[in-house]
């Protein structure tokens, strides 16, 4: 019989962002970490999510086209003159 207070895996994956953002209440952090400590699947899930965040952070933002940039600089010069 499971502890009614305990989180299951399906519930944990929905709390991962709140956990990483520091938005969980202290009691929920405890339940989250207790579950995590005993669950390989959820540990792998969290690791995958961390890898996702890391890889997303390595994407290059879209560059401004030279044409758009020169149009804006022209507008800036006109505005300031």
């Amino acid at each position: 019989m499971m502890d009614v207070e305990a989180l299951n895996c399906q519930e944990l994956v929905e709390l991962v962002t709140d956990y990483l953002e520091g938005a969980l209440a202290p009691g929920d952090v405890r339940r989250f970490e207790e579950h995590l400590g005993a669950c390989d699947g959820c540990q792998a899930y969290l690791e995958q999510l961390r890898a996702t965040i890391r890889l997303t952070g390595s994407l290059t933002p879209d560059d401004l086209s030279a044409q758009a940039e020169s149009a804006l600089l022209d507008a800036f010069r006109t505005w300031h003159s």
Partner: protein
Amino acid sequence: MEYRDEQLVAALRAGDEEAFRTVVREWHSSMLRVAQIFVPTRSLAEEVVQETWLRVLGALDRFEGRSSLKTWVFRILVNTAKTRAQREGRVVPFSSLHDPTRIPEAAVEPERFLPDDHDRHPGGWSAPPRALPEERLVASETREVIAAAVEKLPANQRAVISLRDVEGWSADEVRNALDLSEVNQRVLLHRARAKVRSALEDYLR
């Protein structure tokens, strides 16, 4: 070169082209992502960004520094994009930013879990995720998979994950720029990251 807000505003008011070029470049990608929440195409979003900068310049003398310059510019961007969307006859559902919880969305497909009436592990993994192979994680193809998954997201989720995880904004900066509640910012980020993770897992399986 990095500018502090007051320095930046002063430099822009003084007509410093280098300062203007720096900030236009630095925020360009984020501005496009946000514009695309409201307008359907990349080229319209480019136009919205251009129009925003013209409005920003026109209003710069009235900027009082009550918010950060970034927040102020992005608020103008959102207004410009909304106006443009209306002119294009496009209805932007209010819910796209402000009511994301109205339609529930699971981070992981329910089929990956045991049923609620399972006798030993209700809601436990039936198909648990596994450790990802480190050598493939760093391959450039993997980054392309991530980029493609971000592109495929709904525009509101794409904007939030781009600002947070690509551009490195804080949660508060995103909330202020998009006028989002704390909860909705997190919901959009959660859903975006969950979908990108799922694409990564599928690819590396």
